[in-house]
C-alpha cells in the first residue's frame, strides 16, 4: 500500500526566530514499519514530528505522505491520515469529559452521532479505558491520561501514528502496559523518545537525529547496541543492555 509511505526529502526548517532546527533531513518509512526517532535534547525530534501533518511547513525540501505532497492545501487531507500524540496528555485533553474529548475528532469530521459513538467505543476499548468514558480528564491518573490521549487520536482512524515521548511520567507498570499496547498496533508507527528501552521494545528500525539531520538510520538491533555511535549522539546504551 503505497499510500502509507512517509517520505522526507532534504527537509530544512528554520523557526521564525532564526533557530535552524532541521537541516537536509531525509528518510523514508514504508507501510507497517515501526520507527524510533532518538537524539539529544534539542536535536529536532519534536520539530520533525510537527512536519508530519503540516503543523509546521518545511522551509526547504519536500514531505510526502502517501500519494500526497505536503502543501497548505493538502494538509487538511493529510491530518486525517496521520495522528500525532504529543508528550503531555494534559495539553491534549481539553474537553470536559473523556467521551467529549475522544468524540471531538470524529464530530469534526462531520460524522453522525451514532457513528461517532461507535468510534469512541472502539477507540476506548483499544486502550482498555472504556470505563472512564464519563470522567473529566483532570480526575485521571497520568497513565490513564496518556491512554485516553492515544484513544482520542485513534478515534480518527489514522493510517500512521506518531508519538512524542509517550512514556514520560508513567510509573514502570503503566509504561509496560503502554509498550504492550503499542506493540499490538498494526499501523505505521513513529515514536520519538529518550527512553531507548521502549524504542528497543517497540520499534524495529531506529533513526538518530543530530542537529536536525539524520546521523544514523538502521535496524534498532544494530543502532541501539552500537555504544560508540550512541555516545557520539549524547545517548547511551539502553539500560537493559548495560551491565551492572
Amino acid at each position, binding site marked *: 500500500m503505497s499510500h502509507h509511505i512517509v517520505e522526507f526529502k532534504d527537509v530544512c526548517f528554520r523557526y521564525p*526566530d532564526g533557530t535552524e532546527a532541521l537541516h537536509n533531513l531525509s528518510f523514508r518509512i514504508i507501510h507497517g514499519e515501526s520507527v524510533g526517532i532518538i537524539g539529544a535534547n534539542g536535536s529536532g525530534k519534536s520539530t520533525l514530528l510537527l512536519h508530519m501533518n503540516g503543523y509546521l511547513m518545511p522551509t526547504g525540501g519536500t514531505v510526502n505522505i502517501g500519494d500526497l505532497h505536503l502543501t497548505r492545501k493538502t494538509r487538511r487531507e493529510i491530518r486525517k491520515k496521520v495522528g*500525532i500524540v504529543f508528550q503531555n496528555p494534559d*495539553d491534549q485533553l*481539553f474537553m470536559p469529559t473523556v467521551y467529549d474529548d475522544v468524540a471531538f475528532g470524529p464530530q*469534526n469530521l462531520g460524522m453522525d452521532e451514532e457513528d461517532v459513538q461507535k468510534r469512541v467505543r472502539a477507540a476506548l476499548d483499544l486502550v482498555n479505558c472504556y470505563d472512564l468514558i464519563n470522567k473529566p480528564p483532570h480526575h485521571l491518573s497520568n497513565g490513564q491520561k496518556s491512554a485516553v490521549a492515544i484513544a482520542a487520536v485513534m478515534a480518527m482512524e489514522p493510517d500512521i501514528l506518531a508519538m512524542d515521548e509517550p512514556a514520560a511520567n508513567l510509573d514502570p507498570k503503566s509504561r509496560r502496559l503502554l509498550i504492550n499496547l503499542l506493540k499490538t498496533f498494526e499501523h505505521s508507527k513513529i515514536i520519538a523518545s529518550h527512553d531507548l528501552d521502549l524504542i528497543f521494545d517497540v520499534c524495529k528500525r531506529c533513526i538518530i537525529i543530530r542537529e536536525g539531520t539524520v546521523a544514523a538510520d538502521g535496524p534498532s538491533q544494530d543502532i541501539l547496541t552500537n555504544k560508540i555511535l550512541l555516545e557520539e549522539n549524547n545517548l547511551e546504551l539502553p539500560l537493559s543492555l548495560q551491565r551492572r
Partner: protein
Amino acid sequence: MAFDSQYYNVGYLDRLSYQDTFVHRLDPRTKLITTLLFLFTVISFSKYEVAALFPFLLFPAIFLTVGEIPPGFILKKVLLVSPFAIFIGIFNPLLDHGQVAILPGLTLPAGWLSFASILLKFFLTVSMALLLIATTSFPTICHALRRLGLPSIFVSQLLFLYRYIFVLGEEVMRIVRARDMRSYGRKGTEIKVFVRIAGVLFLRTVERAERIYFAMLARGYEGDMPVSKKYHLTTSDLAFALSVIVCLFIFRCYPVTQIIGNFFRGIFS
C-alpha cells in the same frame, strides 16, 4: 498559524536584545529616558509638519546599524501594527481639502500633508520603541523602571510576565496544535471550544502559580522581591545621553531639512 508568528516575533526580539554591542551595553536608564525624550520631541511637531521630521530618522538608523538589528524585521513589525494609525489618518485627506503648494506647479490637499505627518511619526515612534527593546534586554528595562521609581509590585509583575510568556506560550501552542489536529479547518474553532481551552489553561495557570509560590517559599520568599544593584552609569552613557539631547534640540528648534535643502539649491542655482 497567526498566533505563533506573534509569539515567535517576541522570541526573536528577545534574542536580539541579548547581543553585545555598544548600544546593548549602554545603561538601560539612559536608553529608556532618551527614547522617551525622542518620542516626545517627535510627537510635539504640529499636525502638518513633514519635512522637519526627516532628520529624526537618523536615530533609528544609528540604533539599527550599531545595534546590529536587521532592518527588514523592524520594517515588517512596523507594517504589522500600522492599520489603526492608517485607519485614523486616512480620513485626513478625505476631510481636509485645503490646498498646499509643494513644488512650483504642484499643489496637494493639506490632508495628505497631515496624513504623511502621522505616518512618519508613526514610523519613528514605533521603530524607536522596537529598537529600544531590541537593544535592551527586558529584565534590564525592568531594573531601570524600578530605579526610576515605579512601584515594585508592578515591576515584579513585569518580570513574572516576561518569564512566563514563554512558558505559557509553548503550552498554548501545544494545546492549539492538538485542537487543530483534530478539528479539520474551522470546525474546532468555535467559541465553545475556545472557552473550554481557555478554561483549562486558566486552571492550569492557577495551579502553576501555586507551584511557583512553593518554589519561591523554598528560597526564603517573604513577600518582597529582592533588588540587585547591578548597573552603574558610565561616561559613555552620559556622552550618549548628552549627544542625543543636543541632536533632539537642534532638530526640534531648527528646520534642518530646509537649511540643507536651501544650501543645496544655493549650490546648484
